[in-house]
């Protein structure tokens, strides 16, 4: 959507950082087996001192260790999740499940984040300054997950075997994402500045996916509802979609997008009653 204009009518941000107490986690050493660090949330840090936070345990392989084995903990948490900011000073690519299920507050990761960052988060905000590994925002319910770099596979997707992914909240990716972005998505929004690969919006039931760049193939495969907007070229267009109309505006919930689009509906490959809406940039896809 090279000419598209994205208008956010509403932006969700928690309290400004000024009103928050800050906890800084400074990585101490290189991590070999990836950590299962679902304790790194404002919810579990709230009301705790640096020493108490350091005592929280994380799984590494078959064993648990105190968080302080891996991080120097500085500062202290606010009295509630909403008043707690967690700053990870450095790279967290080998740390999984940061911010899992968090309800409020903020996490800033000054490097890259490992798999499952923001999985099932309900509220608050996570900012990843680097890249995010696969499953970012898996089955997310609310809040804002902002990835300044690229993201891996399965962003906002359903867990393996499940049919329902992200239900609410917003994921913003300034770079590109890989396969199956928004798989099984029921609600919420995913905005990608760059490109996506295969099966973006597979089995989508609701919500909005906006990709400014290109998509590889399988866009909206098996989708039954919701909206996908692709601003760049789709390499191989899904066969189960039917052309509806030319549009110069897409509206979904609080969001409005201006540009020149062809609107399709589907995916009729699975259900005759499918209600998915797929908007494709006219300029980038002259053959459609």
């Amino acid at each position, binding site marked *: 959507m090279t000419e598209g204009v994205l208008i956010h009518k509403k932006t969700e941000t928690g309290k400004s950082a000024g009103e928050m107490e800050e906890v800084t986690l400074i990585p101490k050493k290189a991590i070999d087996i990836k950590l299962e660090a679902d304790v790194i949330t404002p919810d579990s840090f709230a009301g705790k001192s640096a020493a108490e936070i350091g005592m929280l345990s994380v799984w590494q392989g078959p064993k648990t260790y105190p968080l302080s084995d891996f991080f120097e903990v500085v500062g202290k948490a606010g009295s509630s999740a909403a008043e707690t900011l967690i700053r990870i000073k450095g790279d967290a690519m080998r740390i999984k499940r940061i911010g899992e299920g968090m309800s409020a507050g903020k996490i800033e990761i000054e490097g890259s984040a490992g798999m499952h960052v923001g999985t099932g988060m309900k509220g608050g905000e996570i900012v990843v300054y680097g890249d995010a590994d696969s499953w970012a925002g898996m089955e997310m319910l609310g809040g804002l997950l902002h990835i300044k770099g690229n993201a891996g596979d399965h962003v906002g997707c359903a*867990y393996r*075997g499940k*049919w329902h992914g992200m239900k609410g909240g917003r994921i913003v990716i300034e770079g590109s994402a890989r396969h199956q972005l928004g798989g099984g998505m029921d609600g919420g929004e995913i905005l990608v500045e760059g490109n996506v690969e295969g099966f973006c919006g597979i089995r989508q039931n609701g919500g909005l996916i906006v990709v400014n760049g290109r998509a590889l193939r399988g866009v909206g495969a098996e989708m039954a509802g919701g909206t996908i907007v692709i601003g760049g070229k789709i390499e191989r267009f899904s066969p189960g979609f039917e052309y509806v109309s030319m549009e110069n505006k897409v509206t979904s919930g609080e969001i409005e997008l201006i540009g020149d689009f062809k609107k399709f509906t589907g995916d009729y490959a699975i259900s005759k009653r499918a209600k998915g809406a797929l908007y494709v940039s006219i300029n980038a896809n002259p053959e459609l």
Partner: protein
Amino acid sequence: MAGTIAIKNGYVFDPLNEINGEKMDIFIRGGKVVKELSAAEMKTSKVIDASGMTVMPGGVDSHSHVAGAKVNAGRSMRPEDHYKANLKKTALTHSGSGYTVPSVYKQGYDYAAMGYTTVFEAAVPPLEARHTHEEMCATPLLDMGGYLVLGNNFFLMRYLRNGDMEKAAAYVAWMMKTHKTYGIKCVNPAGVENWAWGKNIHSLDETNIHFEVTPREIIKGLTEINETLGMPMPLHLHANNLGHPGCYAITKDSLKIPDGVKTKQNMDVEWAETKMDPSRDRSVYLTHMMFNSFAGTTWADCESGVKDITDYINNRDHVVIDSGCTPFGEATVMTGDGPAIHDIYALTGNKWSNTDVEMECGSGVIPFTYLKSNPVHSLQWAMGLECLLLINDPWKTIMTTDSPNGGPFTKYPEVMTWIMSEAFRKQTFSECHKWANDRSALGGVNRELSLYDLAILTRANPAKTIGMVHRKGSLGVGADGDVTVYNINPQQLDANNYEALLRAFRKAEYTVKGGEIVAVKGEIVSLPEKRTYYSEVHVENEREKEMLADVKEWFRYYTLGFANYPTPEKYLENPTPIQVNGER
């Protein structure tokens, strides 16, 4: 001495001995219930103070899907069932995962935490017996056994068509000891064979493809064989046309077939003392009745047909049922009834697994969610409870969820509380779709079962029905020392306070197995050995030889060799054959 314990001052509910909440002590020595312990034994034995609490025999589940190929298919096709339900390893217990289909370890711990000590696997396909035994062997704490699926077996259908009842009986006897299984299960008789050709069977007198036998002939034949052999339990029937609007009619007609067949349980066992006659007096055990009780013609006009069937059962004495309740929420539907599962697939579009078990049977598995907002699911909830509340004699009913079909066994506490508390039922009526009330009779039922009734539905009757009363289901002298202590004071029991009942049933205060305390407040504290029961059925050597000649001849159609067919005893933990005398 191991397995020696005194459980003092509890209110005891032991229906097989007609003990109804009497305050008394229970003594167990060497794993068996005894009259008393000597003063010297008392000094060294463990003592549980059960003052103000309810004491019952250990829970017995006579119909649950807990082991074998289709259960494992359910586990492997549902990673999403596992990632949120998991159990940490401790110094004593294994790790585990799974909500509707837990791993074997978690399954054993979860049952024991609720006070259950004996669980029978509801369907063992002969070819999958080895796998089933491997899983039963690995399931901790629970005494187990399995029912052999025989309702669509090539050999039996051929014998029944030809009227060769003697060979048919010899075949069943041989199959029981070959696969180390316990009783006869009959799933959608004649229909599952048709499913191999993409079809089903819809009436009792319709012949199936190639074998040209009818459901009626199979039910009649298997019931007669069951009694000829003197099997411990009645024919375990999963009736035809399951899960279809209008299926209640064929269910009722199926129950009429064994009417008049004389029961003859012929086991060579040592019987625990019971006041009631412990021998079996039912010729048919209908399973998950709810799923077979829909009236109406489509899902739009369907309603409960339970009352029609319960009216029949109330007037006859040869039928016992388990309910197959649906307590709402996640379930994994799995059955040997392949076509029924395909119909659910067509309805929901969920991921679906289907298996043809060569010359014997088949199965299907599909995830399912029962929603309070859904009219049919709400009706099913009401129908399941109707099955238990509209049959007057509790000795004709058994509480199950057909786990994990109606919901996982960990939802039993909800079902137990619904049948004991009208207030809890009213609460659920207010939360679910109005079809539950409008299309069933449950709203007008104010019956509330007592703790005594509950002990019948969850231990005494399952044990009596399947012929395990010689050691399970009672606290009579000689019975296995399996005891559940619930933190419920019967003197202050208030059915309106259903939250308290739910809490008490979810985590038994104590679960005692063979005289050892295995769980305290839901926490596993010891892991004594368990047993696997099977029927060693005897028939005349000559007859067995004749029958085996047929079997060997047809065996070339199997994908395995005859020598590899049997399950050796080493696959069983503490194999415990029950001598069934058959025609000797």
